């Protein structure tokens, strides 16, 4: 299925891209997506799905917009 993935802040340099549409297998979760975009599962981050927080094991769906951000703390 096709999803939109946005990498925020320094994570874009880790993943090697800022924003792109990618094809992922059905059943991909937020956590398994990290393996696909080469971001460590252990790295502190917040993953959102269509603007809302998503649990690491939640299956994604076609057309989702996933954003992966470092944990900002308001400066």
């Amino acid at each position, binding site marked *: 299925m096709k999803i939109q993935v946005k990498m925020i802040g*320094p994570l874009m340099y880790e993943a090697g891209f800022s924003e792109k549409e990618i094809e992922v297998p059905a059943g991909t979760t937020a956590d398994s997506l990290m393996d696909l975009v080469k971001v460590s599962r252990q790295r502190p981050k917040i993953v959102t799905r269509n*603007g809302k927080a998503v649990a690491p094991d939640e299956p994604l769906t076609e057309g989702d917009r996933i954003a992966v951000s470092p*944990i*900002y*703390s308001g*400066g």
Partner: protein
Amino acid sequence: MLGWTGNILRVNLTTKTYKKEAYSEEFAQTWVGGRGFASKILYDELEPGIDPLGPDNKFIVALGPLAGIPAPNTGKAVVAAKSPLTGFYGDGNLGTRVSEHLRKAGYDALIVEGKADRPTMLYIEDDKVEFLPAGEVWGQGTYAANDWIYGKYGKGVGVLNIGQGGENLNRYAVVRSLEGRAGGRPGMGAVMGSKLLKAVVVKGTRPIPQADGPGMKALGQGDLKKVQQIDKEMGWSVQSTTGVLSFCNEVAGLPVRNFRKTHHPDAWKIDGERLNNARIATYGCPNCTMRCGITIHDKEGRESELDYENIGLLGANLEIFDLPQVGSLNYLCDEYGLDTMSAGCVLGFYADAIDHGATDGDFKFGDAERAKELLRLAAHREGKVGNLLADGSLRMARAFGRGSEAYAMQVKGLEVAAYNCKFIPGQALAYGVAAIGAHHREAWIITFEIKHTTRESYGPEKAAKVIELQRIRGGMFEFIVACRFPWIELGWSLDNYPKYFKATTGLDWTLDDMWTRADRIYALIKLHFLREFPRVTRQADYPPAVWFDPANADTDGPIAGKHLEADKYDGLLQHYYDQRGYDRRGIPTKATLEKLGLGREAAAAEAYAKLS
């Protein structure tokens, strides 16, 4: 006393006299420094009701026991006074070499009283204080003034100065230092201007008394390198604070069009990636490990040092999605010495008020050229519009009427930060109960709300989180005086700070000891508020009304149809009061004040209003 110099320099501009005053160890250990020293001194020495722009106000520069010590991010100073914007205690914190120099000159704080008879520069070198004429640079911006000072003294001095904004008593004029450092949002620059004080220049040559100087030096310098390395590995300073813009846009927390909207398809044009791509230089505070001052060429080709708040409020909030133009607006604020955050909110409010027919005027969202002109008018109090803008959004709203106060984005008169809390209740609380008026500096809990709780919740855990962060951000870092970024952005352990504190003062304090001081200072600043506004109600701790308005809810995106709910917010606020030991007005009870050792201060407040 070790760690503290034990002395305050008191200067009177009216009489052109000065005095080195010793303070007690008890004062040092009760109030520590920075915000603690400033709030206590002003509480004891200012009569409630004085004009913040009159000669009875006092301008304070207050340092902490870590100021001037080489350790992560200690090159900071607190500036404080009664605020001409909010009408009660106000302060700010900025990176400056005054931090190190004033400590080496032998002082932990500077108190400036009275009013000069002509534009003046204070020059402090160890025990010497000179009242020098500054007429040559009065009327000039902070960059020109800084160059003039460096021309006289070289760069081996600490400098605080003001621009035209402070000189013309713009209520959100700030104090400036170095390339693009600024602080004192609630008009600390205007207080300097009201005293005809253009600049404070300090040179200190003596060692700072410490319990374990060599140990602290080794520890501090080692840790400076460690934190730098962490930043390199995490890559935080590649986009610095502006990295958060994309996050805010994703989760519908970006200020757009005077906070009416929460996201925008053009936000990417002014995001952290674009900022890094446009970088020509990077500046930071003394002893910084992760310099956040990403500098670009603005539209006019000048160097402009940008961070998220500037870009959020002068860019997205005004629907100016053009990075060089945002750079120009930021440059002008720095040049004139205006708070970029309040300037962005004031301009946003002005455009919105015109849009909604609350006032006549000529300013549309997206018009960067007109925004530049308006900043010039506001900094110089030029004409009707300039004077209006110079007074801040709350006074503007009161002048306009027509319900415009609902969308003047401020709390207690201080404009909000670049986080749109239309549907982020805990952060709205953080704005509501920040000590000096709306500020994100004191508590920022947006990730906690989105990731660890839910946005829908108004539960006591959110109030607890705000208090936890206030103790650290608005408390410890503001009285020990160091920048919180290594901890908050890179995960540098809080346990390091009692270590530095012990190496320099010899005192074995725990973090709980720090929180006690933080709670005491928060309670005292509330007493400042009570004495100025004896008829205070809990409404003073509410965020802007527009966030509660269903008609203002987003029509699309992740929070479509959602907004704050007043009865639920009130419940959240009550959780905060209950956990703090404050009464229904948000004022510390007598029992709480006693527990915090504020018995005498409570008695001084009771002359003006009842305590519960």
